[in-house]
């Protein structure tokens, strides 16, 4: 859609008599433009940028005798970054996040593909509605309900017991954590994949078929490269959400071994050590930025052929 700037519009589309008006109009927009333009940045600077900036500052403060002492001390950074347990937790969280994002991307793709290429319009809209629904149900309640389904005496093991299987332990372990992550990210990943697949030019797919390319081969050499950007961004979003999630590893994963978010909450809520919590938080943000930039570079950069 072409972007048209309004101040230029009058001369282009409206009769000449109005041409003397712009002078007066140009004087007036100032207050209007300032109000419109500044409301959001002021709020976000005060309550988004400042808190995040202060988080970085706080990571250099220290706690002495249960009191916060402002200063520029690297003691928290040194203490945490030289601790073996920190890196174990860090790598575990990274691995969990990547695993969650990878699982979500792989599991979502066939579903998004079928909805994008083989579903009727009406059904596709219904599917989109169903995929949006989870965003507006409490993630906490959904997590708790998975516990009802997955524990040793839960619905699924009770059902499996009827056919003589199980019980399988499905909570307080990696499986439970992954179920939680998927609960959080799968609807979003299917949605984003569906949107990017729906924008793939059908002619490309037809052409591939006409040239004798099989369905599976078409998917891998035509569809996936054409939808590359959306697919990668969907994965990146999944990683962001899984990497920072506190609820799933705590309530479905059992909290042990911990992830970075669990460590951060422990340090802040139980240890009352805000500066150390800030160190963990800043490390997480830096990691997310690196991963996001890598994903964007991968998505928009070379490697894939342009559709």
């Amino acid at each position: 859609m072409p972007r048209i700037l309004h101040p230029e519009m009058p001369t282009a589309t409206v009769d000449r008599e109005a041409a003397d008006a712009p002078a007066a109009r140009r004087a007036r927009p100032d207050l209007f433009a300032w109000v419109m333009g500044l409301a959001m940045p002021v709020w976000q600077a005060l309550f988004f940028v400042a808190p995040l900036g202060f988080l970085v500052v706080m990571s250099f403060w220290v706690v002495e005798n249960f009191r916060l002492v402002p200063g520029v001390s690297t003691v928290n950074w040194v203490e945490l970054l030289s601790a073996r347990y920190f890196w174990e937790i860090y790598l575990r969280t990274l691995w969990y996040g990547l695993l969650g994002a990878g699982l979500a991307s792989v599991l979502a793709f066939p579903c998004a593909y079928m909805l994008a290429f083989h579903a009727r319009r009406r059904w596709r809209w219904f599917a989109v509605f169903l995929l949006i629904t989870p965003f507006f149900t409490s993630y906490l309640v959904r997590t708790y309900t998975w516990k009802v389904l997955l524990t040793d005496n839960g619905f699924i093991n009770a059902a499996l017991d009827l056919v003589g299987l199980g019980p399988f332990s499905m909570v307080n372990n990696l499986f439970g954590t992954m179920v939680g992550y998927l609960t959080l990210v799968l609807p979003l990943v299917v949605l984003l994949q569906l949107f990017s697949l729906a924008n793939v030019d059908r002619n490309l797919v037809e052409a591939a078929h006409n040239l004798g390319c099989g369905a599976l081969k078409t998917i891998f050499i035509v569809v996936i490269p054409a939808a590359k950007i959306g697919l990668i961004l969907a994965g990146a979003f999944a990683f962001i959400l899984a990497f920072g999630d506190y609820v799933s590893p705590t309530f479905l994963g059992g909290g042990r071994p911990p992830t970075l978010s669990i460590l951060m909450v422990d340090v802040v809520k139980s240890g009352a050590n805000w500066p150390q919590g800030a160190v963990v938080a800043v490390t997480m943000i830096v990691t997310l930025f690196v991963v996001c930039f890598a994903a964007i570079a991968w998505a928009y950069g070379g490697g894939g052929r342009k559709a």
Partner: protein
Amino acid sequence: MTGERAVRAALWLYVLAVFAFILAPIATSFVVSFNVDRFPTLPLGGFSLRWYEDMMGDPTVLPAFRNTIIAGVTVAVISTFLGFTAAYTDYRYRFFGKSVYLALALLPPTIPVIILGLAMLIFLSRVSLFGQLHSVIIAHVVICLPFAMALIRLRLSQMDPSLEAAAWNLGAGEWRTMRGVILPFTMPAILSALFITMAVSFDEYAIAWFVSGFSETLPVRILAMLQGRVSPRINAIGSIVFTISITLVILAQVILLLRLPSRGQTDDG
């Protein structure tokens, strides 16, 4: 040929399985909330409203519910207003540093809520805004505003730019044009933004957990229950909150869809 049909049937079954996975916890939560057992399993116990009575009997639930509603409504109004100004600025003006401007508006959802929670706790407690309901409101506006902006920006991009220019040429000032042309045109998006942001605020637990202090919201109460003695009371609360949220979302969608067809069909949104 039959092989291909079998593959396709299998893939549709797979699609059903994915949706079953996504919807299972939501459906189960409703069932469990009406089930008599404290530790529900199969076969189900009898139908009962005891968890709803239990919920009503909990003296912490109603104040939390009240807080959630107050915060949700306030957040919806402020974030929709800010989202509107941001969307309009992006739509109309071109200026130096615009990418920074857009990043300010759209970045918050990419920061994990648990980190935002800590950042807000640290910052708000320094400026004496901590531990009150307004702390929750301030923080929620930050994360809700992007949704409002995106919805309203989408609607503005469907508007014919000459409408605004025409109003100016007919002598209407900036504010008058805003009131007479832009606001009416974007009204459906504004209403859906109100509902969507309210729903987002309704379910947000992490930031509220860090900054609310004693002004707990309902999701914070649920988190506390999860850490303590769990019971299907959680599902009862969840069912009620879900019903409210989904009503808001459906209202938002209906308002958007009712107005859209007149602007021509857009495929695949």
